């Protein structure tokens, strides 16, 4: 039996960041994960592979678009195997890098499934394979001074829908890119469904999106989503909101789907698709075996933690998707550092003022801090300043005027409380918004910071100018 100062359960962007940070602080660290490679969902079948595919989708979209500029390309010929290989090579490079980093930091990767024996001991069901010590499988017990649970989340399933049909995929199956189906139904108009739907649509699939609530990307500000919806209407085959899938079955040659909702034509109500992608959210993996032998508490599916990410069991911490929304990799890796520093005895707390969210569709939608919708819900008085990209030189030059940058501002202090952006590359631009919020920047600070011309980043500065009724490129006198 080996003892470690820190054992991390789960090797996703939370888990490996925690393991590396702890090793950097001089701890003796093990990381337990059944996968051969470190990286978790994010690297193996989430953020990174989807971005590789979305990059290709963007290229296809632009190649098509360029006909309008006098440069026409032939319709793309898609070699799915080669595309998949490119995506896999991206994953391979990144996980290879992680393996190298783990080795340099002397982090032990124990390949297996962990269960708690008590508050100081884990039992690991080893996976037979090359990176297992013996290569034989079997069991190993490890003891720890501290443990960090970073077991992440898994795609949610809809009860009653086929789970064994290869034609009904979750995000993992979708990213495997088995083929380019002629027709695809995406169940769920959230970010995962829309990102993957975008990929398949670019590859030539007729994609239908069905969303149960009244709009795509529930939770995001409607004025941002409008820009995305408008474009998706041209790239997707059909989008149904306020619509539910009531039945789904694999017919052997396709998936038969029954839908119910307002304004649905009869032909739409009963259809057969080549494939279906179910993307209706994610569920935390909080059912770690043996947790009942510790004081760790699970509430509404999430592990209960305090502001230092410590669970009700003093020796055990938890981070990432398993402790709560938003289930985002960058939240997990930030929490990882906080938890490790807390374990090392530093006085730290998880206290971000902005956790950015990005939807990598085309256009991208991104936000950070307070949203307008949330402010309304709280009944909090805010002022909104919006800058339409159509007024910006760079946006027009790249023929992407379909964007908007908005600021949510505290009227009393003029502090930036939230930033929302929709448009090409919004995901990159939002980082400035995060910094502004965290640094307690005032609208004046954004306005007075010189932004490079001609870039899309100017929209943040101009939005701040709009707040003061001083935008160069938008005439909108301040309302008072």
């Amino acid at each position, binding site marked *: 039996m080996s003892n470690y100062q820190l054992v991390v359960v789960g090797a996703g962007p939370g888990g490996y960041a925690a393991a590396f940070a702890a090793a950097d602080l001089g701890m003796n660290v093990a990381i337990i994960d059944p996968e051969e490679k470190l990286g978790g969902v994010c690297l193996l079948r989430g953020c990174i592979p989807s971005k590789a595919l979305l990059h290709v989708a963007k290229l296809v979209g632009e190649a098509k678009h360029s006909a309008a500029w006098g440069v026409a390309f032939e319709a793309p010929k898609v070699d799915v195997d080669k595309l998949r290989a490119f995506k896999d090579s991206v994953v391979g490079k990144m996980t290879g890098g992680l393996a190298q980093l783990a080795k340099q930091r002397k982090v032990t990767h124990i390949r297996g499934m962990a269960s708690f024996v008590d508050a100081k001991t884990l039992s690991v069901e080893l996976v037979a394979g090359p990176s297992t010590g013996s290569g034989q499988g079997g069991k190993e017990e490890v003891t720890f001074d501290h443990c960090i649970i970073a077991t992440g989340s898994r795609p949610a399933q809809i009860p009653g829908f086929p789970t064994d049909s290869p034609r009904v995929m979750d995000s993992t199956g979708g990213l495997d890119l088995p083929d380019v189906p002629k027709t695809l139904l995406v169940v769920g108009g959230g970010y995962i469904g829309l990102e993957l739907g975008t990929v398949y649509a670019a590859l030539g699939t007729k994609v239908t999106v069905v969303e149960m609530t009244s709009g795509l990307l529930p939770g995001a500000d*409607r*004025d941002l989503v*409008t820009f995305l919806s408008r474009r998706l209407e041209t790239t997707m085959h059909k989008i149904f909101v306020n619509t539910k899938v009531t039945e789904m079955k694999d017919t052997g040659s396709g998936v038969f789907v029954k839908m119910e909702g307002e304004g649905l034509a009869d032909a739409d109500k009963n259809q057969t698709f080549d494939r279906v992608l179910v993307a209706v959210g994610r569920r935390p993996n909080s059912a770690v075996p043996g947790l009942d032998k510790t004081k760790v508490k699970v509430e509404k599916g999430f592990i209960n933690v305090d502001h230092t990410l410590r669970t009700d069991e003093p020796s055990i911490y938890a981070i990432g998707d398993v402790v709560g929304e938003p289930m985002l990799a960058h939240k997990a890796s930030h929490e990882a550092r906080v938890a490790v520093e807390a374990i090392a005895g530093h*006085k730290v707390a998880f206290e971000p003022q902005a956790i950015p969210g990005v939807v990598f569709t085309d256009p991208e939608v991104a936000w950070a801090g307070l949203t307008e919708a949330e402010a309304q819900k709280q009944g909090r008085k805010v002022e909104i300043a919006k800058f339409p990209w*159509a007024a910006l030189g760079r946006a027009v030059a790249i023929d992407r005027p379909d964007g908007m940058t908005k600021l949510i501002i505290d009227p009393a202090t003029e502090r930036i409380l939230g930033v929302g952006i929709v448009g090409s590359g919004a995901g990159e631009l939002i980082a400035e918004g995060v910094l502004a919020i965290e640094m*307690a920047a*005032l609208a004046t600070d954004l306005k007075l910071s010189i932004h490079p011309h001609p870039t899309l980043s100017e929209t943040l500065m101009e939005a701040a100018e709009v707040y003061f009724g001083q935008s160069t490129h938008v005439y909108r006198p*301040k*309302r*008072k």
Partner: protein
Amino acid sequence: MSDFVLPELGENVEKGDITRVLVNVGDVIANDQPVVELETDKATVEVPSTVSGKVTAIKVKPGDKVKVGQALFSFEAGAAAAAPAPAAAAVDKAPAASPAKETEQTPASTSTPSDLATAAVDKKSADVVDISTGRATPAARPESAPPATSGTPAASASTPAAALAVAPSPAGAIPAAPSVRRFARELGVDIADVAGSGPGGRIGAEDVKVHVKSIVVSPRGGAGGRTAHAPLPDFSKWGAVDVKPMSNIRRKTAEHLAVAWQAPHVTQFDKADITALEAFRKSHGPRVEKAGGKLTVTAILIKICAAAIQRFPQFASSVDTANESIVYKKYVHIGIAVDTPNGLLVPVIRDADKKTITEIAVELGQISQKARDKKLSLEEMSGGVFSISNLGGIGGTAFTPIVNQPEVAILGVSRGAIEPVWNPSTALGAGPSTALGAGGQFVPREMLPLSLSYDHRVIDGADAARFIRFVAEALETPLSMYI
């Protein structure tokens, strides 16, 4: 009932997506009032109404696609409703601007942008007062405003300028960078307690240091004696205890008095014969009562102290240590300590020198009631130059009040009692013959004990003795004030 249709928006814009509906059924809308927000290919625009009347039904919702000419809502034209303006009147030439704003003539739209910015700043720097707690948060930069120099002398329940933030920060969003928040945490400081000196109340690392310094340097612990003390023993070892958080007033009183206590204090005692005054109070009481007041000793003392201050102006001064000067106030506002169920409050009677005793009595009754009802504004608790604390209603023979900084003197009043007073000039033979001389005797007189605490930096002992004598004699023989 008619329908309001989406007017032409100009520049070949024929359709758009409703992003927000700005009116509700039942709303009475005016011409030019924005009714929906529309996202067009070119921009987001607020569509102004070209009609006025009452909205009876709304026909669109956010997310709907609408075309020019499509009905947005139904309305009943009010009696005063103008004839619907031609739709073209609402056309906005600037694609990105809201039409509503072009037609609105608000003051702001005519002022320059810098005016607007200034106005916003002025609004922010105005004192923020929480009436229910009497807690004030002036926008002064903390370290540049030591209590002795602050323009408005703080009432004992209001916050000394030294412990203040610029503006209340929104809950959960302390305006401090992550590095500063972490720095505060490392020092064991709650970042929410730190006053930010930057724009928008932003807290810098320097502010955290100043905050820590204020806690460590102040012998009483700058914040209500919280920090610099040895840790308390575990009282529950010896019996049951009950721990309650300090109320806002209690905390502010603790902070203020801990600072006030640091002035070099002396207390001068005296007694005034109020036998005649009591008779006067009885005979004149009903008259004052008719005016709505009560002829109390306190009301009379306010008037007398106002006269005393005019005779001895150093009793209405303040020490400005930073500028090595003494500020003499030419107004006579007198603070009265009021015992309320929520703690000590000190409302101020303004221009006591210019008011009759009746006026003072009426005002005192009102302001004391307000104090007990928690309705005092900061304004009503600030500006005092001298304070009076009368505990006579409860009892006691003497006490040493603490000067209410930045004032320099306070008069304490204890309970009046009948005492034997030697009167050398009473009728011969009536009393025993003693060494004091023949012919005198003890007579029962009602004596009122007075305690005058003063800041010895500006007031000399002899002046204090003269001041308290002046007050005592005025109580005994009111005409003496005018001699």
